[in-house]
């Protein structure tokens, strides 16, 4: 079955430290790939997306993600986290019909 996996349910990181969130997908072809962020009580906000071309994608809020076809991964990174980055992060793919399939999410806690 086609799926999106985020192996880490929770990650705790110190403010100013780097952050990497993992995402793996299992599809035959390269899907469209997205990262969304959800702050408490809020909807989902798009951080970045990958369709084709350069495999390193820049997004908002200082985030970037790298698509690695050989590993079926699309990991999200930020060099230096801020307390406001505490949120839940969702990786998602579009395979057909523009429907998003989401991973289970990774909750990020930021320590002062």
């Amino acid at each position: 079955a086609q799926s999106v996996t985020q192996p880490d349910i929770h990650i705790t990181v110190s403010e100013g430290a780097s952050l990497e969130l993992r995402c793996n997908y299992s599809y035959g072809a390269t899907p469209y790939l997205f990262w969304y962020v959800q702050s408490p009580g809020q909807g989902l906000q798009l951080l970045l997306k990958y369709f084709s071309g350069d495999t390193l994608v820049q997004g908002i809020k200082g985030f970037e993600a790298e698509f690695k076809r050989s590993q079926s991964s699309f990991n999200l990174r930020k060099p230096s986290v801020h307390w406001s980055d505490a949120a839940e992060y969702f990786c998602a793919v579009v395979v057909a019909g523009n429907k998003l399939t989401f991973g289970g999410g990774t909750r990020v806690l930021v320590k002062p």
Partner: protein
Amino acid sequence: GAGVSQSPSNKVTEKGKDVELRCDPISGHTALYWYRQSLGQGLEFLIYFQGNSAPDKSGLPSDRFSAERTGGSVSTLTIQRTQQEDSAVYLCASSLGGSGNTIYFGEGSWLTVV
């Protein structure tokens, strides 16, 4: 408005009652989606409208759930005879349609069935 608007933002209802949740998509967006977010189930696709095409209802969990989209714009998600397991956040989203276009989400309607 500038974004996807959902109402009500919060709804508490008694088990067995019907509820309606409303979504106003971004103006000009032809595609509209409903998702459900609940503890233990994550984000689940419910239904997808694209233009005048027949909706993709493949994610609706039971026949108690239905949705309409009138005039290609506003959508209503209806849950009949609500059950406690229907308690969740119902997220609406819209896009320009077509694969790969950015999908924009509303802030959700929090439904609690007591």
